């Protein structure tokens, strides 16, 4: 117990990332607001980044491209995704006056 509390190892970081990822998954599954869903996706991307950095710290950078660079690229992709997603939310809201994903069923039929 003392070890678990005071010897912070890689496992702690991995478990933290897993918990954050699961909270993001839960947000995507239970919330119906498109904005909250986008935020949960960002949360999952952050958890994946944390896992990348933890493994990089664990094994050292052995390949050509380090995990830090990879995480930076992931952040860039997340920024692009957030901007396009928010633009879609604005466009949908303009036409329908809500952003509830359960009510966007036009393409279903």
């Amino acid at each position, binding site marked *: 117990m003392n070890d678990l509390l005071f010897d912070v190892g890689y496992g702690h970081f991995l478990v933290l990332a897993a918990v954050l990822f699961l909270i993001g998954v839960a947000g995507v599954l239970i*919330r119906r607001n498109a904005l909250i869903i986008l935020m949960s996706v960002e949360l999952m991307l952050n958890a994946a980044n944390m896992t990348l950095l933890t493994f990089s710290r664990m094994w*050292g950078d052995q390949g050509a491209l380090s995990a830090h660079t990879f995480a930076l690229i992931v952040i860039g992709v997340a*920024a692009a995704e957030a901007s396009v997603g928010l633009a879609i939310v604005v466009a949908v809201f303009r036409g329908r006056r809500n952003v509830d994903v359960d009510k966007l069923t036009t393409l279903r039929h």
Partner: protein
Amino acid sequence: MKFLAWLIAAALILCVAGIATPSLVHAQPVPTAERPAGQGGDAPHAIVTKTHPHDDIVESSGKGMAVLFWIFAAASIAGALFVVTRRNLIAAVMGMVGSFVGIAAVYMMLYAQFLAVIQMLVYAGAIMVLFVFVIMILNRPEDEPVAPTGRLGQVIGGAAILYLVARLAMILINVALPNKAVALASPAPIMLPGWGTVAAEPVGWGTVKAVGNDLFGPGLFPFEAISILLLVAVVGAIAIARPLHPDDGTDADPGIHP
């Protein structure tokens, strides 16, 4: 009032991170392997034996480090839970910012200093401001019941979550911690396009210099691709969010209604 409490909490966390940083950064953990002379360019696959830079324990196993880790882990998880549970969108964004601050501090503990700063700048600075802008444009702070799904959906969703948790737990149990005596390959020489091979020089771990050397060396193509992707995203966002008929003002795109 709740927002104010969250802002104060975020500022407090930031202060603690600032205090904690120097002692964390000081201990540079990675001894860079000295490349033997004469093996600079033509033997990129030469194995230079070096002991693994770090042990199981990330750093210093000190109680202060552990306490900081638990504080920031609790902050990030609490912020994430705040995002998932709040009805108020602005409160959710504030929880997200607190979560990002905690995550940035955790990055700092992983010696990813550059990534921690980028996390604060890009996520807590730019993306969250974008979210706040959109929330203000939509101007509907309170709405939405949580999860109006039927029994079947709850069963399927619960099963999916349980499966995901089980798989994650198995992966985490099976993670093989690196042996301390493992010999690693030496870092690959940096290839600059058009400049031949430059021998890898010892750089710090996770600093701007290290990430920059990597980003403009082997990571040059992804870097350029990201720039094009961001340009496409900007143009696409403008094209999507613009009203179809500029004269109509903000109301009623005829193209969206069936």
